């Protein structure tokens, strides 16, 4: 396959950046998208040029490291797939693809297709966890969990924090990410002691980071590689409002 790639090149956070055209020749349909970029980078390095910077780690769709816009769609045209698991057979010989980084005020560009997603980490630090004292593990059957709740919590916990929800949302909102993090713990007994504080802290941290507001378009759900449901956003709204009225802090 031969493809034309228009890739966002930006040397540093302060650089203006621009789309640069590259020709990808002799691409195997069995390659992953990142492997295709690897071949582009090999050629660039051999020519003495700066390779295209993009984030990646597991290349199995589970770590949440990779992600950029492929012709205007987060992680490319396939649903429920990260860009590392997107294969070139889904494109047609002769296609022109535009590769851009996630764009959001809260995700400043570091270089080329790499953005700083530490705003998501700061949201988790604000309370997206369960405080557990060290010691021996408790007896497993001591914590009773309804099966249905465990299933919904597990679906929410599938979020890999890639940032595609923010990237695809026209408002650059992080509500799906925060909704998933609040839901996965609000539905389990382990999450109860910090439930209210967590909902309040995560929303405050999200707002402070400069993410936009949710306008319920569900584009985030459509773009999420883990297909996290927007019902988690409704749950986040409930959790936040409930916590606002009932949390002891004034």
């Amino acid at each position, binding site marked *: 396959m031969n493809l034309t790639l228009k890739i966002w090149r930006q040397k540093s956070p302060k650089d203006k950046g621009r789309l640069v055209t590259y020709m990808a020749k002799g691409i195997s349909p069995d390659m992953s998208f990142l492997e295709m970029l690897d071949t582009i980078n090999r050629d660039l390095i051999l020519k003495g040029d700066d390779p295209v910077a993009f984030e990646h780690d597991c290349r199995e769709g589970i770590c949440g490291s990779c992600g950029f816009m492929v012709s205007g769609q987060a992680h490319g045209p396939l649903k429920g797939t990260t860009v590392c698991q997107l294969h070139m057979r889904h494109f047609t010989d002769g296609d022109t693809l535009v590769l851009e980084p996630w*764009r959001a005020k809260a995700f400043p560009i570091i270089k080329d297709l790499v953005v700083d997603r530490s705003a998501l980490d700061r949201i988790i630090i604000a309370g997206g966890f369960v405080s557990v004292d060290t010691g021996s593990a408790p007896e497993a059957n001591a914590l009773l969990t309804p099966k249905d709740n465990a299933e919904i919590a597990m679906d929410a916990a599938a979020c890999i924090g890639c940032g595609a929800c923010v990237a695809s949302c026209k408002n650059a909102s992080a509500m799906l990410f925060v909704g998933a993090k609040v839901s996965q713990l609000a539905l389990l007994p382990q999450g109860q002691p910090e439930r209210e504080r967590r909902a309040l802290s995560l929303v*405050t941290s999200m707002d402070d980071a400069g993410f936009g507001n949710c306008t319920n378009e569900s584009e985030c759900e459509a773009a999420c590689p883990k297909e996290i449901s927007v019902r988690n956003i409704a749950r986040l709204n409930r959790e936040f409002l409930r916590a*606002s009225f009932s949390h002891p802090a004034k």
Partner: protein
Amino acid sequence: MSWFTKALKSSVGKKFVLGLTGLALVGFLIEHLVGNLLLYKGADSFNGYAHMLESSELILPAELGLLALFLVHIVLAITVTVGNKSARPEVYSMYASKGGRTLASKTMIYTGILIFVFLVLHLVHFRFGVQSLDAEGRRNLYAAVLALFRSPVYVAWYVLAVCLVGLHVSHGFQSALRSIGVNHPKYAPALEALSLLFGFLFAIGFSSFALWAHFFKGGS
């Protein structure tokens, strides 16, 4: 900052109030549509209904309440939109939906602005513009409706405006419910269908008055 102010100023709080006011305005639209159906019954019924409303002691608090609902809804919608624009200072050179967005959802602020313009004109024409009285000494709104809809341009503008109201509500109703936390696999599909139904009802229902007046009553 008190817990209440903090909650209202948060992104979730703003959307909660935006949703609540939107739902209340849908309630008003239902009442307005049902009341306007009296046009089909004739001048006496329609003018009598309008007179009953206007002479009620509750009309002033009701109108002030409506004004507050509209103002809060509009101010919050603008605030949220401005915040959303600043959350993505640099736009994509190419963007394509993966399936979530609809025509209604992506045009909410634009349909909202046009509805506001329509609302102002609507109030100027019908709330403050009609002074002539009928034989019973009531404001002759029935005659005013027929006179205004004699103009095909006004009919076209009115039909366009109420179709925009329908488009706005078709996304707004379900969006408002989600913003206040109402969403469950058991009933979410029914509420989404209801949202579309409201959109169609408002578009077709209000359009019918203009088309009926123009084509069947000849504006006379």
